[in-house]
């Protein structure tokens, strides 16, 4: 009996007080880039509930979720891929899959996790259950030359689209046979720096750094090849310096318009998604990094590159202009909306906290301590294509 009690105690409340059943829809995590930790959070309570260490170099780390929202797959800069159980608040498995990684995605059916790597340049597919390596697809664009991979996005049919920074291509790799993937290649333009897939999974877009414009591939008709849109989008004649590459992932479509960071410029570009033509530019207070729509599309929140990274501008999509400007903290690196957008979480890296704001009246609702916080990822991403 005594032994049983001890065993019970060791198992914590789980076994004895009856299982604490709960869903995962209101959970999430905060990357603490400097110290290799993640803080697990509850977006209903707006509180952290656990902290997990030992994840390596998490600068530029990102996360994707299993379909059930229970497991997060975290891609670290050092090539680490860590699977975390949000309910048990622990690491399930951790592998080092490459020397230098930049993110990853999860397949439509949730079975395959794909990492995109700078070094060695290419992508790798893993079984989401076991993190066993399924296939490796090097980004060789000329004999013996491998490109850094950017913009990896999941699309329909367990296909992944991505771009080659050094190779100037868009590629689509089909993992319907996970151990024997097939890859299609499309010339795209000079130095694609990031990519995105539209929420319906139809178009893959890659922003170009080496020339003006965006390369677009219609994934429903890939045989038509990639074409260039927004030829006036870019750094322009003067080749403006860019102090941080904008992130296209997590981009925004609202009311039939897409809002994109104008690379190098203090502007957000407005594009009609029916014609893919530019229909406006909205001046903002710095070089945009993330341009993110509140889930209902009424607002677009914009953060900025150094030296304007303490500012956040909010665009009202009905008014078509910035209607709220704030300086919430030092080095605002990322923003994440509650699943239906009533509040937004901002990571203030140099203040060592995450700030929570009401998106309707911009009142501050609270803050959570975190060491050099960067990305914030909620489980609501689990059900979205391209997240």
């Amino acid at each position, binding site marked *: 009996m005594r032994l049983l009690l001890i065993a019970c105690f060791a198992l914590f409340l789980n076994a004895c007080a009856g299982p604490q059943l709960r869903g995962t829809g209101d959970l999430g995590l905060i990357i603490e*880039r*400097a110290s290799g930790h993640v803080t697990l959070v509850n977006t209903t309570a707006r509180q952290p509930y656990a902290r997990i260490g030992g994840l390596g*170099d998490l*600068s*530029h780390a990102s996360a994707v979720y299993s379909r059930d929202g229970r497991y997060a797959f975290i891609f670290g*800069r*050092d090539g680490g891929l860590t699977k975390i159980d949000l309910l048990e608040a622990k690491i399930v498995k951790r592998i080092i899959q490459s020397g*230098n990684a*930049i993110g990853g995605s999860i397949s439509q059916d949730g079975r395959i996790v794909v990492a995109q790597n*700078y*070094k060695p340049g290419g992508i790798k597919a893993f079984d989401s259950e076991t993190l066993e390596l399924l296939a490796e697809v090097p980004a060789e664009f000329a004999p013996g030359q491998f490109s*850094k991979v950017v913009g990896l996005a999941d699309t329909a049919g367990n296909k992944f689209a991505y771009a080659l*920074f050094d190779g100037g291509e868009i590629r689509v790799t089909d993992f319907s046979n996970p151990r024997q993937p097939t890859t299609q290649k499309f010339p795209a333009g000079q*130095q694609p*720096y990031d990519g995105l897939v539209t929420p319906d999974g139809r178009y893959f877009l890659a922003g170009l*750094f*080496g020339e003006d414009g965006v390369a677009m591939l219609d994934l429903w008709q890939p045989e038509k090849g990639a074409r260039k849109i927004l030829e006036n989008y870019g750094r322009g004649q003067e*080749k403006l*310096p*860019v*102090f*941080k*590459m904008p992130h296209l992932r997590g981009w925004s479509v609202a009311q039939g318009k897409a809002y994109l960071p104008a690379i190098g410029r203090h502007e957000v570009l407005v594009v009609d998604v029916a014609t893919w033509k530019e229909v406006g530019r909205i001046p903002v207070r710095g070089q945009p990094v993330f341009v993110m729509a509140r889930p209902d599309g009424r607002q677009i929140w914009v953060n900025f590159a*150094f*030296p304007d990274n303490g500012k956040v501008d909010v665009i009202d999509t009905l008014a078509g202009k910035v209607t709220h400007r704030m300086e919430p903290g030092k*080095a605002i690196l990322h923003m994440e909306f509650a699943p239906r957008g009533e509040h937004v979480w901002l990571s203030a*890296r*140099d203040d060592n906290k995450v700030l929570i704001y009401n998106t309707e009246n911009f009142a501050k609702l609270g803050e959570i301590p975190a060491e050099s916080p960067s990305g914030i990822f909620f489980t609501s991403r689990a059900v979205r294509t391209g997240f």
Partner: protein
Amino acid sequence: MSTSNFIFGLFFLSTVAIAGEPDVARQKELVHLVRQDCGSCHGMTLKGGLGPALLPENLRDKPAEGLAATIYYGRPGTPMPPWKAFLSEAEAAWIVDKLMTEFPE
């Protein structure tokens, strides 16, 4: 040249001449800049990302002045931007010196 510019110029010259390297507070700012903001392309641990690794073994065989010029003026045609709006040439040289030996945490 306005008086304030002139005074600033004198001050600038004298700090560079006397100290030869940025003062402690400024060093801290520069280290933070390199780890965090250069880190977005070169990695926080400087092992590389979109930009190449900036560890001593990667830089050893390269002339320091050239590297300092890369930081100050950027490298046209690549994503490496000029940082001259945010630091002086002497500070760029100090950063290179630290990168080539051991970069502070």
